[in-house]
């Protein structure tokens, strides 16, 4: 550290050193301010870049790029839903697809049958999932760990079967076809981008406040948390409701975008329940932006593998995931944090 050396030399050099010392201090203050502002600046630039994507992407690839970007954002949103419940509150769910599917159908009905404004329909469809999750949580939160995770898998399967058999409402396995909600891709993209940014903001506020601390306490040790005055059922339910709402928004957006629903697709455990776990694991469980980073990595590498290896892409994606789990079990952001902590502790004088 050159600054450190200047500092040490200061007593011997008298007045000029004094001036130098002052300058260094000012530089340090400036750097500290920069360090404080830098994350916000980066974030603002990223948001700006993302928001203007439809304008600066090359015209002939524009639709392709927007399609990919929408996939990234959709995975990120699902991942954030999983992350709040599993990464923060420690309630791993294998059945997030249930809320994706429920809200997808809810959107279709609200938008098509009741001819609601698409944005209002999307919001209400999210609310439907948030409401459905309450009785589910009250029953299933009696189970812990793997038992909760598996019972959620069963719940998702039940919702899929209900959607398939309730033909008067969902048109069953034949599927439901309707007109897409937004006139062009760019509008869809912007709607989704706003939903994702809003979800990041809400998650960020939530996890930095009392509920967030309580989520972590429950994740770490539910009995110890109870002994500290934490009503674990209530706070798990809180995480679950927000999580189901986010997953519901993802499902509703999916419906608005693809305008075709089939129970085996929107309730698919592999497509949604598993996918949201993978993107979260890659990015980092219990990290605010983990699922966003993970989604970008997974979607973009998958796209790359499809072009490079054709049918072999699944194999390559699997291999990538294994490598991640072997070398970064705490995810990319977890690894990064660990590295930062390690360096900081090395630098600290003993």
């Amino acid at each position, binding site marked *: 550290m050159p600054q450190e050396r200047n500092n040490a030399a200061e007593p011997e050099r008298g007045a000029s050193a004094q001036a130098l010392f002052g300058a260094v201090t000012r530089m340090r203050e400036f750097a500290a301010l920069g360090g404080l502002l830098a994350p916000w600046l980066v974030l603002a630039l990223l948001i700006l870049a993302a928001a203007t994507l439809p304008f600066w992407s090359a015209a002939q690839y524009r639709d392709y790029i927007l399609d990919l970007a929408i996939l990234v954002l959709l995975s990120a949103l699902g991942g954030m839903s999983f992350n709040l419940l599993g990464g923060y509150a420690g309630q791993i769910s294998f059945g997030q697809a249930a809320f994706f599917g429920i809200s997808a159908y809810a959107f279709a009905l609200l938008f098509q049958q009741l001819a609601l404004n698409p944005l209002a329909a999307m919001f209400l469809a999210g609310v439907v999932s948030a409401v459905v999750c309450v009785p589910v949580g009250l029953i299933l939160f009696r189970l812990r760990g793997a038992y909760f995770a598996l019972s959620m898998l069963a719940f998702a399967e039940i919702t899929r079967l209900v959607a398939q058999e309730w033909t008067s409402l969902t048109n069953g396995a034949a599927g439901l076809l309707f007109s897409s909600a937004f006139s062009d891709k760019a509008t869809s993209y912007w709607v989704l981008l706003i939903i994702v940014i809003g979800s990041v903001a809400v998650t960020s506020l939530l996890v*930095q*406040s*009392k509920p967030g*601390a*309580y989520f*972590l*306490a429950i994740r*770490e*040790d539910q*009995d*110890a*948390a*109870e*002994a*500290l*005055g*934490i*009503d*674990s059922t209530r706070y798990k339910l809180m995480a679950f409701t927000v999580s189901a709402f986010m997953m519901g928004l993802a499902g509703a957006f999916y419906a608005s975008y693809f305008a075709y629903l089939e129970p085996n697709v929107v309730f698919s455990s592999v497509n949604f329940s598993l996918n949201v776990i993978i993107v979260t694991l890659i990015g980092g469980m219990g990290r605010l932006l983990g699922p966003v980073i993970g989604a970008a990595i997974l979607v973009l590498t998958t796209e790359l593998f499809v072009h490079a290896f054709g049918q072999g892409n699944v194999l390559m994606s699997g291999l990538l995931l294994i490598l991640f789990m072997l070398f970064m079990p705490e995810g990319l952001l977890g690894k990064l944090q660990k590295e930062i902590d390690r360096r900081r502790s090395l630098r600290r004088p003993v």
Partner: protein
Amino acid sequence: MAQDGVLLRITGLEKRVGGLRAVHNVDLGVHRGEVVGLIGPNGAGKTTLFSLISGAEKPSAGSIEFEGRAIAGLRPSRIAQLGIARTFQVVRPLPRLTVLENVMIGAYCRVARKASAREIALSWLEFTDLVHRRDSLARNLTIADRKRLEITRALATQPHLLLLDEVMAGLTATETETAVELLQRIRARGIAMVIIEHVMRVIMAISDRLIVLNYGERIAAGDPQTVASDPAVIRAYLGGNPGA
């Protein structure tokens, strides 16, 4: 018994586990600011009694009143909110959170704002001399510090009654000395305590009153000197002819 001044009143408490009576017909009263030592051989039902008071387990019969309110069967979080905090015999820090975060979670029991929780947590960490470790992960603490963290976290919930389950076990002689000194300071704050402890020197020094459990039953109660010389207590610990 004077009605005022009684903080905790347990009458006829019963806990059956299968055919076994883990706690049988136990009566216990704790006054405000009082320190009660709870002793007895292994398996006597001491920890079970704590679990019943703190709501981790539900009693089969009997009543528990805290500040005049029936609390038997309430969920643990509710009992903690009412003002009874406990530590666990096998310490349960929130391992991947820092010491400060652990204590803040206790402090959130009374406040909603992060800044207030932080302030309360720091002042209790100061009180228990753990403030220098505030940024360490709980899982990286020594056993003595973990026990201290457990007490600090419990104190941060601002209890009127603190249940301490073997907070001295596994500590060195010096660590025990510091821990006793900490308990004295907690007592000075007017917080009532029930202490389960095997180190007799400690329990004799700090308790106003002793309760002895054996096979789930209360076999003696009173001031420490009398109880320690009670033949029934000596028999329970050392064995011997029940008729003698």
